[in-house]
């Protein structure tokens, strides 16, 4: 799941400064689940902005909209009918991940689209209210050799051949409650009786499949649209 958090109201307030009529567009996908851009967050932000405008004697109309998944054109298109003209709203604030913001912008070429969230990482809730990073989307999964614990996403240095000297009693030296991924890998492999898999040296990773190779694109030819 994509984890995101709301930008500060001050930031959002500055972004919408030029506009008198805006719409907040939430997403029912990942950002609802991580409590950043669901129906509740949209309603709360809208109420807060209205209140702030009222306090400052500023004219501001805030509409609230929800999209099933903001990363799909089909789900956004019904919105185009709500805001067909430039006069309807002057700007859109997307409460989705960065993907949603861009998809929205592509569907509304005539409107400014602003991000209401900071997209944080790919992760999961460790416990109620705490989300942790689990995947880096590096494009070449090595979890088979590391006991299903990712050293790319969970080691601060992306190390491939064991921990560095900053691993202290299972914790990473960067602090913040981050566990040393390689400590976890060692413990898990020991439990599985598979420590021998650490004997083989991992060669330098092909980072071309990560972001370093430029924006990525995935094509399934059998599904690719003919038109």
């Amino acid at each position, binding site marked *: 799941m994509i984890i995101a958090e709301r930008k500060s109201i001050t930031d959002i307030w500055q972004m919408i400064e030029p506009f008198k009529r805006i719409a907040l567009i939430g997403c029912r996908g990942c950002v609802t689940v991580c409590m950043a851009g669901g129906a509740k967050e949209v309603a709360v932000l809208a*109420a*807060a902005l209205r209140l702030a405008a009222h306090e400052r004697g500023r004219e501001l109309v805030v509409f609230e909209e929800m999209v099933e998944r903001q990363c799909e054109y089909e789900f956004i298109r019904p919105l185009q009918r709500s805001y067909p003209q430039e006069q309807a709203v002057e700007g859109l604030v997307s409460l989705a991940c960065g993907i949603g913001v861009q998809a929205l912008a592509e569907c509304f070429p005539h409107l400014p689209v602003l991000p209401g969230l900071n997209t944080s990482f790919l992760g999961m809730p460790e416990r109620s209210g705490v989300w942790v990073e689990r995947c880096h989307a590096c494009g070449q999964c090595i979890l088979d050799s590391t006991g299903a614990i990712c050293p790319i996403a969970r080691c601060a240095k992306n190390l491939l051949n064991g921990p560095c000297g900053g691993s202290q009693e299972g914790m990473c030296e960067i602090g913040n409650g981050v566990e040393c991924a390689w400590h976890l890998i060692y413990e898990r492999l020991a439990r599985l009786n598979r420590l021998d898999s650490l004997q083989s040296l991992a060669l330098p990773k092909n980072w071309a499949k990560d972001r370093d190779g430029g924006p990525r694109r995935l094509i399934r030819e059998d599904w690719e649209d003919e038109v």
Partner: protein
Amino acid sequence: MKQQVAVEPISGALNKHKVQPVLVLGAGITADYAAQRLSSAHKIVQIKWGPVADLPLDWLLKQEALEKGRIESSWEKIKAVALLDWSGQVGEYILRIQLENGEVRDLRGKAVVIALDALPVSTLAWGWPGPANSSRPLEETITLSDLTTRLTPVLASSSGRPERDGLSVWAAGHNVGILLGPGGLEAAPNTLLAIKCALVLKQQVDCRVGIFYEELAVGAGAIEALYQESRQAGVEFYRYTEFPQVIEQEAQLRIIYRDPSLPDHFPPWEIPVTLIATATEYYPSKEIETVATLAGLPTGPDGFLLSDTLHAWGGQTNRKGIYCVGMARGLLRLMDLPEEVAGVAVDLGQGSSREKTLLLAQVDPLLCEVCLTCFRVCPHRAIEITDCTKRSSHGKLYKQAAWIHPEACQGCGICIAECPAQAINGADPLQPESKLDPDSGWHFFMLDNGELYQARTREDFSGNQGPVRLVVLACRQSGFLAVQTLTRLLPFYRPQLKLGILAEIAVYPVACAGWIDDLTVLRCLEDGADKVLICSCHSGACQHQYGNHRAKKRLRLTEQYLQEIGLKDRLDFYTLAGQNYLQWLTWLKKIINQLKSH
């Protein structure tokens, strides 16, 4: 997460499943007592699992509580070695147990009564009070329960014709020392036993008896009267701060006792005894921990089930259809066992004795994003994640949705406040009925003379808008009770008073402070309130376990939110009990005065 098939909403779940038995969990004295009592009206399956306490109920409970009722229904006993799983809801709970032969079996019951004994740990087992200089097992040291067993014939005879034969063999002329462990009120059953034994020994057998204690729990039950009687009869009481030692000298046991009221340089007393009886200590067993985890019941700081939950009376727990009686809540609860079991019997008979919930939360399956927030947060474990066929035809990514069991829901509304998808609905207390009645909130005016008046009708309220407007959201269990009391004391507002209105105050009841979220507060402010006041129960006194805590944490964030948009001092939180109406009034007046001066 357990996957469960959606059950049709049922009403009176307990009554509809009359054929199902009541499961009684426990192997000891608590379970036997509870099963015996409840079997007069219900089919009982007793799962014999867990420790057995060595305490004589006939010494601890009143005579009328011990009279055995007629067993009307069947009382099946199944010995289990492990409790593996606990699923289902009120009306049908399913307990998966392992039998002695390794077989795994699912037992179904309309309700479950947790009647586990606490784990007895004899002070003798610690190697104490064996004398430091002797390794032989001492015949002269017995447990308090053993002493009661030996004294039972004496006690029986004391009510009728005195019969002292049989006891002179071992007891006459003894010097008996009864050693109570450290601990106060929670050890009341041991205190009661000690005092009763001492009285019998003193009055019937003519022994010299001394009771050594750290804190004597005379506050509970009828111990106070017995304590006075025993003092008058000549039982000696020794209060210690340092646990007394026992030594053996010239084949004579001596209790080394240091009087805490004497200066340190005074030598300790040596009290010769011929018999020592020690109280058994009771601890929460690992079975209690297992039950707490599997059934989702909270434990108190002492490790016992629901030991610090104020609202769980008469055996009730945070989950409907699950009861907890006796020692599983701590040793002291053993004294309340008859009342608790009677409470369970009443609850089982009625379906539920609890007031009809004011707010029934319902999930809209098409809005639910299965984020599991409600599933995780529900203090009553009323929420299940179920398959929902309706969803697939609406282009939903997930086929499942949260579903709130209508019988298990206790209407706190915590899930409504937490749901990030706004998929859960409940009655909205901010949309009161058109007429002014207690259920839709109360309205007050503060006039220029600084006094508070009630608004008699809604028209009174809407026509007169004072300069200061307050919205009070008050928990029904605390703040609203306080306001309710105030309405009986405050005069009604009359336009003839010819005084200006300084402030208007609207008080709305909420099922629990946990229902209040940031959106509610913002909406109130949007509607023109100058300040929103939240009244909740005291910490640890929430009927829904942590509704007040959730509200407080959530609203601390809302306060930050408000500060970000430049609104300061627009939200306040007040914890109070239902009877604190005068404090509440003082607080309210203080806030209005603050707002006035702004």
